[in-house]
């Protein structure tokens, strides 16, 4: 890593400078849009503007209803295999460089997930009732 020392006892992690610049620029753009809009736009408030859908029906009831907790388990199981796919893609791309080590590692990873899959299956986590 390239580290530039500004003075004794401190250093600037120069690799992160682009990140800092991007953060600065993006927040400036966001803030700028809001501020410019606030200054430029005409201000004519009326009641219909406050509706969620200005030209539709007003919504009935609260959209935040409690729903079945079983969805939670399904979502959790989904995340596991989702993450597996996320790991598989870069592995497949870099397979040539990783060689046999990468192959063994990935097989271990898949086996671990497979064991978990068999486990939840046998425990009936996929049964809705």
């Amino acid at each position, binding site marked *: 890593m390239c580290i530039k020392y500004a003075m004794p*006892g401190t250093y600037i*992690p120069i690799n992160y400078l682009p990140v800092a610049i991007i953060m600065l620029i993006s927040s400036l753009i966001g803030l700028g849009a809001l501020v410019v809009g606030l200054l430029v736009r005409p201000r004519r408030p009326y009641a219909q503007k406050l509706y969620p859908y200005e030209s539709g029906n007003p919504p009935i009831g609260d959209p935040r209803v409690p729903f079945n907790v079983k969805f939670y388990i399904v979502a959790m199981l989904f995340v596991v295999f989702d993450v597996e796919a996320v790991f598989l893609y870069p592995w497949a791309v870099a397979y040539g460089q*990783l*060689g046999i080590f990468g192959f063994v590692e990935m097989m271990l990873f898949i086996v671990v997930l497979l064991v978990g899959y068999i486990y939840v299956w*046998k425990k009936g986590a996929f049964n809705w009732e």
Partner: protein
Amino acid sequence: MNTEVGISLRDAIPFIPELVIICTGLIAMMLDLVVRKKGPVAAFVVFGTLVAGYAMCKLNGFNEPQSAFLNMFILDGYAGFFKLIFFINLILTVCISYRYMIIEKSSYGEYYSLLTFATAGMMVMASATDLITLYLGLELMALSTYILAGLMRNDRRSNEAALKYFFLGAFSSAFLLYGISLTYGMTGTTNLNEISATIQNLNIAGNPILFLGLIFIMTAFAFKIALAPFHMWAPDVYEGAPTSVTAFMSVGPKAAGFAVLGRVLFEAFGSMQVQWTNILIPLALLTMAVGSIVALSQTNIKRMLAYSSVAHASYMLLGVIAGTPAGLVSTINYLLIYTFMNIGAFAIVILLRSEGFQGQDLDDYRGLAKSNPLAAALMLVFMFSLTGIPPTAGFIGKFYVFMELINADKTYLAVIAVAFSAISAFFYLRVVMYMYMKDSDEPRTISCSPSMNVALAVTALMVIVLGIYPEPVLNYVKTVVFG
């Protein structure tokens, strides 16, 4: 083999003990789906742990440290000895819990898998030479123990324990990550050796931001070790969790916490020793005071042992405060002794639990010497050892820690620690008093099992042997840990 990546299959060699333990956990999980009774699962976990221990001794990491995975992982004597403690902890816990989990109607196969996975996490912690590996091991250990604490699904207190442990554990993980990020921000690396080198090269040992990072990292470790004022979770969690899990948690995560504390403080922040000693001394004194004094008013034996484990953490910490390799050796020696005496004491608590009888109150120990003289005698040995009365091992543990403190010119700390141990004698010996000097007319059944008998025999034997003839083990720790 590939030079670009820098990791090859050879890197997996020092990692074999962990691989064996993880495979044991996975196979135990599969086995649980096939067999109805949990006996084979428990037996398999013990077998797997023995294989892992054998593999670790064969690897000979004690004599020649082997590092792997781009210096993120090391198998050396220090890590190896901690792993031995974890293996002992795992095997003894499995032995004392088989019958108990059936009585609690919580005999799930997952129990044994989770114990194994938690042990794998502790092993990674002990071997971590990079803050990221350390965090990985810590989370593996912590997530497994959260579930273990809440294993008695129909018991409100067990659920409460799991939730409390989880929330506070998540907080402490956040502290750790914040500390790691500050340290990384100041040094540009997460490798312990490189952190140490950078601190020296840049001469930033006095830098306040780096110091803040160190404080955050130590806070997270203090939480895992249950040092006051970060001990508030311990009594509730220890009381609510299944007793066997309490035994496991009071030794394993504590030992793992000391493993990482020792390595991080000595290896990465060795040049900031003055600063961290100044933090640890008040922590140790406060922990001693809280552990010994609050335990006086406890009538639930699990809560009492929880506060006792808080107090013991402070005595172990004194070895780290001494700041010398010999001091660290005395801490590790204390941890080994503590493993046997603490699991032994919890084993007796489990022994008293039978169908329809909790056996957790001090009153339940009335007249135990008449109804079950052997159980009472064993409890007597463990209580004497926890107090630190010769010829039990607890005395040897305290003796060496205090000796190293005096060698390091911190005699006043040793004096205060001795005073607090004298206070703690009250609540340990009160159990003995209840067992031997009070009468009870209600009949009592104790729940023996062959594996429990083995665990009790081993713990009691080790407590006495280490108390009478500690030299070989102590020398072994010395040579193993520091060549």
